[in-house]
Every structure is written in structure tokens, then in C-alpha cells.
């Protein structure tokens, strides 16, 4: 039997480094899950759901709902080929907070004024930023939120920053076009948005982007930044880009990162 750690303190406390999910009591480990199995409804299906729950570490698990999918406008759907389940139960896993690697932002969050000042005094020229959605992705709202004046979550977008020279190429830009534009404009940073993720389109497109820039410009390639709601910020290295931003990113975070990555350290005065 795995240690369920019943006697340890898993409550919300500054110091606790090992926690468990909380249903209605500290340490109870309770979670909810739902999924579909390609099995007709019935006891065998419920058993299969319990097996999966167990493999997920939910024990004891309760199949609290199971219903056939897609046969005849109503109730059980006995002739269905799929069954949808809702399962509740306690997971035995412990969450070790010390092992959580948060990409602690290794740079300070700057105000627009500070960003402008840093660029102006330390870079001594304006910073050229190019934005686009690549591939067939037509979702521009995210990149617009970062770049456009209007901004996002109450913060102005990068166009508002005096010392940033921003061009937003919009959607459906092909990678070769983008490489071309980056070269032509001497971009310091290329910001790319990817929202469609089905079949990992965003990952594929990002890798293609990184490859094309590497090939075309080698070491002298601009800083590559990608963003979108389904990216895991920890994946930058894996994808071959410099930085990945996820859901809820604000323009200020991006501007601060650009300063950190592209503007030389303050010289000791």
C-alpha cells in the first residue's frame, strides 16, 4: 500500500511542501474526472472505467455517472458504442511543491517608462519587433492583444512603447515570408502566435519556424518568441525558440522580457 500520509499536514500553509488535492478535508486527495471509453454502457464499461481510474491512481474510485453516447435522443442508449463516465475519488499521489519548477521570471517586470528608458539609454536605438501568426492560423486576437495599442488586461500593447518599432504582419503568414520580412526589417525580435493546437499544429509550426530561421540566418537570427493559450512555457528549448508565453500573457511581461534578452546589462556607473 502506498503511503497515503494521512497523518501529515497537507493543508494550506506557507511551509508545507507536500500537498494533496483537497475535496472537503485536508489531505483527502479528492479529484473529479470524466472521460469516454469506446465500450458499450453496462457493468463491463463501469469496470473498465474503474480500472482506468485505478491506473490514474484514484483509489477508491466511484463511477458516479455512466451513460451511453449517441444513441437515440434520450436516456441510457443501450446500443451506444461509447460510454461517458464521471468518476470521483481520492488519488494516492502526493504533490511535492519543492519539485515544481516554476520558471521564476529571471528578469524584473518593467513599466513602459522603464522599458523605454532601458532601450534608449542602454541600447541607444529603437528595438525592432515583428509579429505574426504563421501557417494557416487566423487567430490574431492574441498577438494583437500583445502588440496593438489597445493592449490586454488594462495594459497597453507594445505599439504604445516609444522605443519599440512594431510591425504586426497579421495572420496566415508563411514562414519564408516571415524570414524574409525579418531580414528586410532587421528585426531584433520575431513574435509569433499559434492558437490552433489540434494534432499539435502549434508545435509543428514552431519547430518549422525555428528551423527556417536557423537555416537562413544562423547565429544572427532574431530573438524568437512564441505564444498562445495552449503552450507550456517550459518548452522553449525543446521547440528551438528563445521564449514561450502561455495563456493570459500581458504585454508588459513581453516587453520586460525583450529588454532582458536584447538590451545589454546596465554598465556599472
Amino acid at each position, binding site marked *: 500500500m502506498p503511503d497515503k500520509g494521512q497523518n501529515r499536514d497537507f493543508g494550506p500553509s506557507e511551509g508545507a511542501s507536500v500537498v494533496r488535492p483537497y475535496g472537503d478535508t485536508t489531505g483527502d486527495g479528492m479529484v473529479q474526472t470524466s472521460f469516454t471509453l469506446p465500450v458499450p454502457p453496462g457493468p463491463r464499461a463501469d469496470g473498465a472505467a474503474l480500472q482506468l481510474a485505478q491506473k490514474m491512481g484514484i483509489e477508491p474510485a466511484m463511477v458516479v455517472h455512466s451513460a451511453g453516447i*449517441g*444513441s437515440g435522443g434520450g436516456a441510457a442508449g443501450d446500443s451506444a458504442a461509447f460510454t461517458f463516465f464521471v468518476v470521483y475519488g481520492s488519488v494516492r499521489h502526493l504533490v511535492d511543491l519543492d519539485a515544481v519548477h516554476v520558471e521564476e521570471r529571471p528578469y524584473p517586470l518593467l513599466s513602459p517608462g522603464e522599458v523605454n528608458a532601458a532601450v534608449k539609454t542602454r541600447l541607444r536605438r529603437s528595438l525592432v519587433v515583428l509579429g505574426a501568426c504563421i501557417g494557416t492560423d487566423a487567430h490574431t486576437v492574441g498577438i494583437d492583444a500583445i502588440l496593438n495599442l489597445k493592449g490586454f488586461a488594462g495594459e497597453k500593447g507594445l505599439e504604445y512603447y516609444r522605443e519599440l518599432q512594431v510591425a504586426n504582419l*497579421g495572420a496566415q503568414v508563411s514562414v519564408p515570408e516571415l524570414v524574409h520580412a525579418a531580414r528586410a526589417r532587421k528585426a531584433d525580435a520575431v513574435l509569433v502566435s499559434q492558437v490552433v493546437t489540434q494534432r499539435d499544429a502549434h508545435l509543428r509550426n514552431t519547430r518549422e519556424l525555428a528551423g527556417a530561421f536557423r537555416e537562413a540566418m544562423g547565429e544572427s537570427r532574431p530573438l524568437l518568441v512564441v505564444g498562445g493559450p495552449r503552450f507550456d512555457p517550459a518548452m522553449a528549448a525543446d521547440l528551438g525558440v528563445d521564449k514561450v508565453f502561455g495563456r493570459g500573457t500581458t504585454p508588459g511581461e513581453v516587453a520586460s522580457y525583450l529588454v532582458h534578452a536584447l538590451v545589454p546589462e546596465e554598465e556599472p556607473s
Partner: protein
Amino acid sequence: MSRLQLDQALVARARELAARAAAPVVDLAATYTTVSVERATLRLAGLTGTDPLDGDGEVPWVNRVVDAVRDQVGLEHGVALPVWHALGSGGTLQDLAEQVGAGTARFTVPEGAAADRAREAARAAVGAGIARIDANRARREELVATHGDPPRRPWIYLIVATGDIHEDIPQAQAAARAGADVIAVIRSTGQSLLDYVPEGATRTGYAGTYATQENFRLMRAALDDVSAELGRYVRLTNYASGLCMPEIAVLAGLERLDMMLNDAMYGILFRDINPHRTFVDQRFSRMVHARAGIIINTGEDNYLTTADAVDEAHTVTVSQLLNERLAHEAGLEDWQLGLGHAFEIDPAVPESFRLELAHALLARGLFPDAPLKWMPPTKHMTGDVFRGYLLDGFFNLAGALTGQGILLVGMMTEAVVTPWLSDRDLALRNVRYVLEAAGNLHEDFAPQPGGFIDRRAHTVLTEAVELLERIAAHPQGLIQAIADGTFGITKRSPDGGKGLDGVVRKAADHFDPATELLTREVSRA
């Protein structure tokens, strides 16, 4: 059904202004043809298949032939004259296409009697395609008579989007069994920018499945089976908007699709397709849909994903009025106008639900005979799927309270993934509960004249008329309004965007048998 008392003088004024604002777009179609219109003509005449020899992907014969004609004699006369002239010496379209593939076809523009002969042959060939469309329309009516229509309004409209037609089919059937009245197969993200229509059964789309004639056929057949099983005719929808509007419209007619997303504005604003190109394409595609008895869906709902649904509510109204005008002009009847609108107000806005009701009632009041397409919340959906499920329930309720015609079923996972099998099932259960438990609540729903809802609807209508005044005042009308960023706060200039090189000014002797045959029909109607 509770209706708003709209100021009828204002409504009449709105329609008059819409006609003026749309006029420059109507002119476009009279002046230009496009590669896609010409290809659509060949498709109507029965040309199918792809050049099998090409290395990087297959290119449809219709593209090969139109490109060859363009290269050799230009497109300003249309493809029909040179093509049927070339066929005059015998052989099939298919043979001719293969000669094009082999580089041996030679096109010229016939004149005089030769031209008359070519025109006659072209009319006959294209007429056969139109006859097939007519037969499909009749067949649909027959099937509806046999199996029956959905028992109530709104019709329940569900999307499938696996990217793989062979996954789509069982999912669509499951959805129909669970209560869907209309199945829409959405397209792979890239397709609307392709300047050709892919061929065959496909399994490799991203976030959608390619629209191909074979996929249409497979899905329609599957839905025919399930219609028979259920005793209810299940409709099929796909997307025409994009660079190949006219061709896909034809394929839809040939394969008995029942509804089509058909809106140039969507392509312009959200796909950056050139306005001239797609307005010309739209005219042709709508004529085909008018003939085919297909209901079109327009895309005003999309504006509210980039623009604020309260501030810009009137732009939806303006666009609906313009789309109505452009649809009527192409021969569509009111029952074919699935004008789009959506439940996209930020749920955190106070009174958001009543604002939605006001907007939805306004559309209902302006277009009493159109089967309005009511779109679910998307923009303000989040990963909180419980909240999403609740919002969708209120969306469903708004649809029932305001008498919408087509209810696009919202998915709790909207902000997460393309819909899962279980999402659709849960979503349908949501719709069923709301319609069965509260579907008749409209009997008790009586917005007070001068009350919150009435005032809001009137405000939006007034703003819409004011905006139409400004648009109609400009000689370029709608085209200028698009350039100004009026819709979806997105600016698109008339000479920007994709597909402009496929637009050709018609010569005086331009001949297009399809338009001719379809127009004859329209003016008869």
C-alpha cells in the same frame, strides 16, 4: 412568440440604405469574373479529377484547364467559349483536360457561328449539372416528406471536426441519433486559402476536415442512412466561403448538401481574402445555392469575437441588412437566409443576458421570415468547463425565448479543444433540457415597451441606421466600410488580400453559361 414593436419607418429606411450601400458590390459581379467562377462552370459541366502526374500534391483538372485557357487566350471571355470550341472537334472534357496535362491542348476564342456552337454545347453541358442540382433539390424535398422535418424550432446544429472523414462519420451519426438536426463538417484550417478544391476522401485535416466532393458524398450518404433510421431528415452543412466559393457551392449542389456557410465578408475580414475576388465569387455561389434550395449561413457572429459585442452590436445588424440585400439580389429567398448572430457579450457585463435577448429579438424582428443562425458563446468561454456548460444553457434559453431558427450547439470545451464526442453529447443534453423544460417560456416573456430590452433594441437599430447612412453616402459603399475597419474592427483594403490575381475584368463577349442559366431562373422567379 413575443415580438418587439420596431419603428417600421426606421426599418424601411435601413433597407433602402442597405441597398444603396451594397450597390458597388453588385456592380463588381457584373464587371468581373474569377478563376474560381470559371472552374465552377467546368465543374457544373462535369469535369472532375486531378492531374495525377504532378509531383507536389495533385492539382484538379479544372484548375489545369482554366490556367491553360488563361495562359493561352486570357480569361476575359470566360472558359466556356474556348473550351467548348476546343471540344467542337469531339471528345470529352476529361480528354481535353488530359491534353492540357500533356501540354497538347490549344485554345482559341471562337467567333460568329463557331462561338454560337460553342455556347450551345456549353449550355447543354452546364445544363446537365444544373439538372443534377435540381434533381437533388427534388430528392431532398422527397426525403423530407418521407422522413419528416425536425419536430420543432430551433433546429439543432452540431459541428464535427476531427480532420478525418472516417472519424467524422460515426461522430456525425452519433450526434444525429442524440438529437442533432443539422451536422456541419468544418474544414481544415488551411482550406479556405487554397485556390483549388482537394479531391477524394481525406483523413489529414487540422481542426477540420477538407471539403471535397467525395467527403460530401460520403457524409450525405451516412446521414441519409441515419435519417431513415431516425425518421427525421438530418441536414448537412459545409463551408463555401474562401477562395473556392463558387466551386464548393457547385459541389454542395451536386452532392445534396442542405446548408452552406456562404459569406464573402468572413473571407475578407478573417481570412484576408481580396474583397473583389470573393464578392464576385459570392454572387455566383449564392446563385447556385438559390437554385439548389440550400440555406446559406452568414458570418456576422464572427465580428463579435474581435469586436465588443455590446459596443459593436449595430455592426452586426448593418451587415445582416447588407447580406440580406446581396442574397436577394442573387436569387435567394427569405427562408434561405441563415443570417448569423451570436451570444458573445462578456458574461461579466451587468444584465448581459437581457442585452443578448434585446439583440436577438432585434434580429428576429428585422428578419421575421429568415431562419436566423444563433451562435453560442465562444470568446468569453474559458477552461472552466462547468461555467461554460451553464453559459451554453443560457444561450439555449435565449434562443428559445427569441425564436431563433438554427441553434448552433455550444461546447463546454470551446476554449480548450475542438469538440470531443462527449462534449457534443453533453451539449445536446443541455439543449434538450432547456427546450423541453423551458422551450415555451416565450409565452410568458413579454419585454415591456419602453423597458430595458425594448430600449436596448431600439438603440442598436438607431445606431445601425446611422452607420448605414454613413456607408451609403460613400460611392464605394460597403467596400469602403470594410476598408475603414467597420466590421470586426478589422481593416481590409479593396486591393489587398489573397486571390486578387484570380480576378479578371470581363470582356464584352464574356460568356458564362452557368450564370446565364441561373439568372434566367432568377428573373423568372
